[in-house]
């Protein structure tokens, strides 16, 4: 392999370049990225950056020394629009064609939109630095805005928390009865959801959105039950779609993400996928699902780089998936996978103080399959190493 092209210049793309070099690959690397920015870290966009505690420069994932060592050719502000797997070339929006031996698909995901938002200003989604800058300007406009956040997932909850810290009047509208139930299980999800009320933010559960009011700027959110919530700023956080439109008709199989084996290999030889866009079977969860978390992008990068360089699917480590979220000054950390029927048990701390560690047990052997911590990093980090996949415990 003499030339590898990475499509997507963010965490998964950069991590794969790092891994390729760490594995000893010394051929050419080109990275194509639609955003004009060099790779930056997204998690602070809803946290410290939105709050105004850090500036854009602090988000950089790489630095000058590393850039030099990686010796990659960065093509930024350019979108890949096609991939010809037969003659091994990529087409960019500008019409430029890049010949390449190997391809890394790292195009991540894009926020889902709600109908009716297209013609109104003041309705935001949050994925990119530019999105975050626009939302930050709207929240810090010099008066206490009325903010409606649609969706109480991690990003919605973090935006609500940051907007509240900035003095906004915040309402969160959530379609499900219990936000984050799928990730945390009902009992723990209820505790995490209570952080909103603890901090003076209204959470409307089981509530759908019918549309928006306003002529040019949004003035309110119309709920499915007919109620109207006045709003100066609306943030839509209703999940993401994998960015795979550019792969249509290329022969790379797409079905809720790029379909891969456990080694991140696609159906097409010499083409791998990593990060939010990749749907790989996970050795710990036993599920063939995309994982939209920071650590997953860095973990998969190692696997994908090996697969690409050896031509044989690399075996990923069977470690528990991990993510964190910061909400209302509480650090939430979660590892493992919560199957239906897993029972959480508080092993340290106090739920009332929002500072505790819970271990989820599952199956006859009551094996630990997941751990959740609120403001308890130390024990959490010990426990996350003891988790076992529910798939094997179920059999045992």
């Amino acid at each position: 392999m003499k030339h590898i092209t990475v499509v997507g210049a963010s965490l998964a793309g950069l991590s794969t370049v790092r891994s390729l070099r760490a594995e000893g690959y010394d051929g050419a690397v080109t990275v194509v990225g639609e955003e004009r920015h060099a790779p930056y870290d997204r998690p602070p966009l809803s946290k410290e950056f939105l709050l105004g505690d850090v500036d854009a420069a602090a988000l950089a994932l790489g630095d000058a020394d590393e850039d030099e060592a990686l010796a990659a050719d960065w093509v930024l502000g350019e979108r890949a629009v096609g991939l010809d797997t037969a003659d091994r070339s990529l087409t960019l929006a500008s019409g430029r064609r890049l010949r390449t031996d190997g391809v890394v698909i790292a195009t991540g995901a894009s926020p889902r939109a709600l109908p009716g938002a297209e013609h109104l200003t003041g309705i935001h989604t949050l994925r990119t630095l530019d999105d975050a800058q626009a939302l930050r300007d709207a929240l810090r406009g010099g008066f206490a805005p009325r903010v409606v956040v649609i969706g109480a997932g991690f990003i919605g909850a973090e935006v609500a928390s940051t907007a509240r810290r900035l003095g906004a009047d915040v309402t969160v509208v959530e379609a499900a009865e219990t936000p984050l139930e799928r990730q945390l299980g009902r009992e723990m999800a209820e505790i995490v959801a209570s952080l909103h009320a603890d901090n003076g933010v209204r959470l409307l559960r089981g509530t759908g959105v019918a549309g928006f009011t306003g002529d040019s700027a949004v003035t309110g959110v119309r709920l499915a039950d007919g109620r109207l919530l006045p709003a100066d700023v609306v943030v839509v956080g209703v999940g993401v779609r994998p960015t795979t439109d550019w792969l249509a008709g290329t022969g790379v199989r797409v079905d809720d993400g790029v379909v891969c084996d456990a080694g991140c290999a696609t159906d097409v030889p010499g083409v791998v996928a990593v990060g939010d866009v990749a749907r790989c079977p996970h050795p710990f969860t036993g599920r063939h699902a995309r994982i939209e978390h920071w650590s997953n992008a860095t973990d998969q990068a190692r696997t994908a780089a090996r697969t690409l360089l050896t031509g044989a699917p690399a075996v990923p480590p069977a470690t528990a998936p991990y993510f964190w979220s910061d909400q209302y000054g509480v650090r939430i950390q979660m590892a493992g996978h919560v199957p239906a029927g897993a029972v959480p048990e508080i092993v340290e701390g106090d739920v009332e103080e929002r500072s505790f560690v819970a271990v989820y047990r599952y199956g006859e052997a009551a094996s630990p399959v997941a751990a959740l911590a609120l403001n308890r990093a130390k024990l959490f980090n010990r426990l996350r190493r003891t988790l076992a996949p529910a798939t094997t415990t179920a059999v045992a």
Partner: protein
Amino acid sequence: MITVCRIEELPPGESLRITDGVPAPIAVFNADGTIYAVDDTCTHQDASLADGWLEGCFVECPLHTALFDLRTGMPTCAPAKTPVRTHQVSVENGHILLHISVGEPA
């Protein structure tokens, strides 16, 4: 110089966070019998290294798993790029003593 604790209060594999009498929090570790001290806050983002996972003379950050060499403060992998400042420690009369370095990390 400040007294951290009696040596038996920090058994091998354990860590402590010192916040009193120091300009910024300091993490003290007992790595298999050798005591190390470094600035507690990870140089990447906001996490306390005293909460981290100790493996030999390395500590893994509890938030994004950057690994720091406690002997030098140097990060050995992403996402951390800059070293944490190290501090001198000594054991005298059964007590762990901390000698705080000032200035920039090496």
